[in-house]
């Protein structure tokens, strides 16, 4: 199973990830409840995401000091769907000119119902440069 959202190269093809959700409002409410513990400030803007069965690939902006170990993935159940949050655990305070980099993180589905649609709670952003 592989879901993709690509927002690089000025294209935004966010179609798939939430498409299976039939009740977006209720799902979002559930997501906010279930991810209450997540500091929304740390939910980084993603410039692209690719979801695989065991891991997730996503693109974020880096100032030179961003790597895989600076992110955590949060996957929780909210009834009829799973909610995915990608949290930055360490800020990038370096002063390289920002660039897009791709990060890979494992996903831990243990204890979660399989085959549920996944809702992404991170904001998505278009790369405009």
């Amino acid at each position: 199973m592989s879901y993709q959202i690509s927002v690089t190269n000025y294209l935004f093809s966010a179609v798939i990830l939430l498409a299976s959700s039939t009740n977006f409002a209720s799902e979002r409410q559930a997501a906010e409840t279930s991810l209450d513990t997540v500091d929304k400030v740390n939910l980084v803007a993603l410039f692209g995401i690719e979801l695989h069965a065991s891991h997730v690939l996503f693109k974020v902006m880096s100032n030179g000091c961003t790597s895989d170990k600076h992110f955590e993935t949060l996957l929780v159940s909210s009834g009829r769907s799973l909610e995915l949050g990608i949290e930055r655990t360490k800020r990038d305070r370096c002063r390289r000119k920002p660039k897009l980099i791709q990060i890979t993180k494992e996903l831990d589905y243990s204890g979660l119902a399989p085959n549920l649609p996944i809702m992404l709670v991170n904001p998505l952003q278009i790369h405009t440069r």
Partner: protein
Amino acid sequence: MKNTRPNKRMKRSALATAISMFIAGTAYSSDYSTRIIGGANAPADTYPWMVSVKSSDDGEHFCGASLIAPSYVMTAAHCVEDVRAEDIKVTVSEFDLEAESNQEKTVAIKHVYLHESYGDDNDIAVLELASAINKTPVKLAGVVLNDSINIGSNMTVMGWGNQSQDGENFPNLLQEVQVPLADFQQCKTNYAGIDVDITDNMLCAGLVEGGKDSCQGDSGGPLLFQKDSDWYQTGIVSHGEGCAQENFFGVYTKVSSYTTWISRATSGELEPYVADGEQSYDDDYSDGDYGDDEYDEHTDNEFDGDDYQDEDMPFGLPLYLEFIATEDEAVVEESFEFLNETDSAIAIQGISLENDQHFALTGNTCDARTLDPEQACEVQIAYTAGDEEFHESALSISLNDEEEPLVEIPLFGALFDELELDDDFDGMDGIDDEEWFFDGDDAWEGNSEEGAFTLSADAVSVNQDAVLMTELEGPGTLEFEMTLEGDVSGNSLSFMVDGEVVTTLSSERAAKEHSMELSEGEHQVAWVYHKAEQSGAGAQASVNDIEFEQEGQDGFDDDDFGNEFSDEDGPSDEEVGQAVDTLAEAVGGAGSSDSLLIAIMMLFGLGSLLPKVRTQRTSKEDIS
């Protein structure tokens, strides 16, 4: 034998460069808008060692760097981590990212040397160039110099980084901003509050209130400290909380912590860094146009904390003598002493002057003398000004010393004008108001109302220069603001120290605050307005808020002036007057009015003949 004569041609050549820079001026465009963060456009083609690190694919700039040796540039480790050498290139002497100039040179990277302990510390990397670059490298601050920089001393950071604190605005032209060295403990404490560790391998610079800082895109670029006219790299742009934020200074890699590591990187002792996915490849790059033999090995000198010291003359002799005569004082005398600083007796066989009617020996206790160790004698020379503005001669001293059989001291004499200031002139702090001189067209004047030295461009003829000059005794810190308004771009206002151009304004409207450290000894500082073409109506140059703080002389309570002034009562006018006289004597010293000579020499293309004067204190046992 140390003979100053053979060096003259070389020094003239060096001076010609400085003069041509100052005559030509440099393109300077200042519109008072926000730069780097809180900075301004750098003068074009002024920093030959400034480097832009770019992507090989699209040529996009992403980090700064600095040329530290003909084949090496230094940058931040985070700029090149996970980057293959073939994926990057550098442009040395870069200024405008969008326009190629004949100054810049772009080269590929042969090897990347990333600090082996890079993580949250050690943010430093050295890139070996595929071919050597024939540009002047920046000097690196050693421990001695670094530790001598006081908190609050201004440093300069430059780069092509973001100019906006809350958005993105990346410039094409190199930007620079002055940021004071921050208190390390304060910086460490502030960052500890957000769980960021500031280590002893880092420097902090910026304002507590924020507003001036490096930012994203500046990483790897140099943080510089200017001592006299020389630039020393003290830091590498690394990181910071946001940019120019209140209470959060910019954080820089401390260069002096890595002198050994840099030496190893530039001498082939370190293994090149291999990024993930990068193939280790053979050294199949050409050596470029420049063989190693054509370059000095800079590393030894660069990492020597003493490399900013000037050379000494033997026997405590001056490198030169300068005589400044004025209309009121047409005959001036200078003297020096000869100290036998060797372990054996030295016979002075003869002292003679080159044939010149303007110089005469008026005192001589040295001729035909044998001096025992630590014994000294004295020579006095008079200069009589004539109709010509400038005279040059030399004094020769013949010795029975194998190492120094002949010592020559150049003599320079000139007729200059003293700038008369109103009694209520208040345009400077720490400089005696009787120590200002001018040359060229009589255009500079002390403006009491504005507390500034001002120059009306209308008073200067085309192709002429107007020099404002004084002489300062270091060590100390000189601060001032210089402004050029309403003028055409071809005209310029340059600030010079010891005959070398430090910075230049050349624009319809340009202003610059400047701060620099002066090393121990006398220094001639000058502001030179050059008029290359007709000025606009009302064009004006000005120098204001001049402040010189001699190191160790905080007000008048330094030991040199005694402690007769009580802080509680404050000094009386008479006491202040006496102290000012004392200070003036200390600042000016013998021949202090000679400073004007430097300007004349510069105008005659002779300024580079003047080495930096070092005050030599000798403990003479006997002057007879």
